[in-house]
């Protein structure tokens, strides 16, 4: 997994509450048994114009399609971003599109875990501060880039204001070092094996055996 320490980029605001993972990647865009090929389907319901069920071109009103936000890698969103379905495809789609940092007052909890497992930084800030960040992008979001520093836990606006954020140490370490979670856990394999041995005594009824 790609480590993330500092990141600077174009930010795009999508300031509505409860943006769910069906909106981030609709079911019909999850076409293959793969983590790839999902970027095109990102926000498909909002991002494209349709005739019937056919896409007929980009929806110019949608922020991601506006030149001001071209190449955006930081998403500013409303509370409870990524609620709903556990589909990790939402995170794979955001990452494939080019997002590296998401900023919102809160996140869906499965979605947030999925972000951390895929090197996408979820930053939690109060709604007013997310609005402040969004305001700081104008008049030219391409020039007025945002800087995110995970080591220092701060976000800096283009006009030099800094906003501190907190993040749990487990998530921070995983992202900073791009750690493979399975590998890290298997460092505790002795503890797992010891637990299992004791557990098989204590809760023998809970074990299943191959058919």
């Amino acid at each position, binding site marked *: 997994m790609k480590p993330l320490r500092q990141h600077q980029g174009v930010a795009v605001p999508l*300031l*509505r509450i409860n943006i769910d993972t069906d909106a981030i990647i609709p079911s*019909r865009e999850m*076409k293959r048994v793969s983590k790839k090929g999902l970027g095109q389907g990102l926000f498909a319901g909002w991002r494209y114009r349709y005739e019937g069920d056919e896409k007929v071109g980009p929806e110019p009103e949608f922020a991601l399609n506006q030149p001001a936000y071209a190449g955006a890698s930081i998403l500013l969103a409303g509370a409870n971003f990524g609620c709903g379905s556990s589909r990790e495809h939402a995170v794979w789609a955001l990452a494939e599109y080019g997002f590296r940092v998401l900023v919102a007052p*809160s996140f869906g909890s499965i979605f947030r875990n999925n972000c951390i497992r895929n090197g996408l930084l979820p930053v939690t800030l109060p709604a007013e501060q997310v609005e402040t960040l969004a305001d700081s992008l104008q008049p030219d979001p391409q020039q007025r880039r945002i800087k995110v520093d995970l080591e220092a836990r701060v976000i800096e606006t283009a006009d030099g204001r800094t906003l501190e954020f907190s993040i749990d140490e*487990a998530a921070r370490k995983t992202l900073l070092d791009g750690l493979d*979670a399975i590998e890290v856990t298997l460092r505790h394999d002795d503890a797992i094996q010891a637990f299992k041995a004791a557990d098989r005594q204590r809760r023998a009824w809970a074990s299943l055996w191959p*058919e």
Partner: protein
Amino acid sequence: MEQTLFDKIWNDHQVAELDDGSFLVYIDRVFLHERTGSVALSSLAESGRAVRNPAQVFGTVDHIIDTTPGRSDRTRMPGGEAFVRAMRELSRQAGIRFIDIHDRRQGISHLVSAEQGIALPGLTLVCPDSHTCTLGALGTLAWGIGSSECEHAMATETLRLKKPGQMQVRCDGELPAGVTAKDLALHLIGRHSAAGGRGFAIEFCGSTVERLPLAGRATLCNMAVEFSAFTALVAPDEKTLAYVEQRPLAPAGDQLASARQYWERLHTDPGARFDLQLTIDAADVAPTVTWGTSPQHAVAVDGRVPDPRHIADEQERRTTELAMAYMDLAPGTAVRDLAIDGAFIGSCTNSRLPDLRAAAAVLDGNRVADGITAICVPGSSAIKREAEAEGLDEVFRAAGFEWRESGCSLCFYAGGEGFPTGARVISSTNRNFEGRQGRGVRTHLASPATVAASAIAGRIADCRETTARP
């Protein structure tokens, strides 16, 4: 020290406390379905890792498979077959138990877990599906995860977790006639918002919950994820134990005796502390329907769409306006009597036998209104057989409902099947998100009885009035 039900299960699964403040937690069971499980299995294989304990991993097909009678691997969705076949083949390679499309045990993952005894009180169970919390109804500590976490669970038999906070939701009293667990869940979310349970493991308790059948408890726990909770639990009681002991994978003989002993201590000790307690008076709950695009947009069936001008917070006002525009509703519109185009009964929320019976009681002797597409999809093949043995399928068919094979079906668009663009649909499912049941489709969530009553009326209806008819 007094412990909660959650404490007891958590403590018995805690492998280690790590120096970053997280915990390594033992996972007893993993369940997979073809949409996200297939990706987890294929990615695990690609990384050169094995499923460590295949005996604890199960899979089925429910999300993408066709639910029309006479189905095969073919799906309406182009390429959907690949998910079904990958799931089958990868399960075989990994050596896990796989319940295939024509297996008598096939059904929606969380229903199969309960019916087969894969989920038992006091176990931890994870599945790459957000509605895994449904199994809290049996006192199983079960929650939804992503595909990567699922790989982790299969490769290590553990997950790394932060310990969630604990919330008690107490509901006492008798639910009024025509009011169900679904109405209670929507009422809770409507009152405390779709983020009201964020960061919490919830325990539902109180006399109302004790009286609920297991199916109703499943509905209640199922909707906990729409409340943004980590998961939900109901303490197992005699009703629970009588059910789980009969399951094919339940412990037997001496093992059952020791399991029973273990299960009997699975309740919150008097005086145990919760971080937050909410109470609901059952008498305050009415048949509840959503008007918008979040489960928190819930009102009593005789309620109205809000007026955004009365919402002080700007972001919330804007979000409400967007939801109203999508739903094509004006401020102050009465929810009741909104004309509908479709009605759906199914999903891991409301597709169990008591749900189908409640809907059939409303439908019996009635006909779905002209022009309404009405579909019923039993939650599992077993439920379908039981319903047919009772003649419920005849009631549904006679009323003008399609009667299908089990699966997730029109709860969402995954199988490539949706209602027509712009259709207004009343649905016994869990999510009214934009595009969930088809592009531009406007979903109103409700109980099975309300869906049935509305299908007959051709508009959103109060099931208490329909059931009153002879």
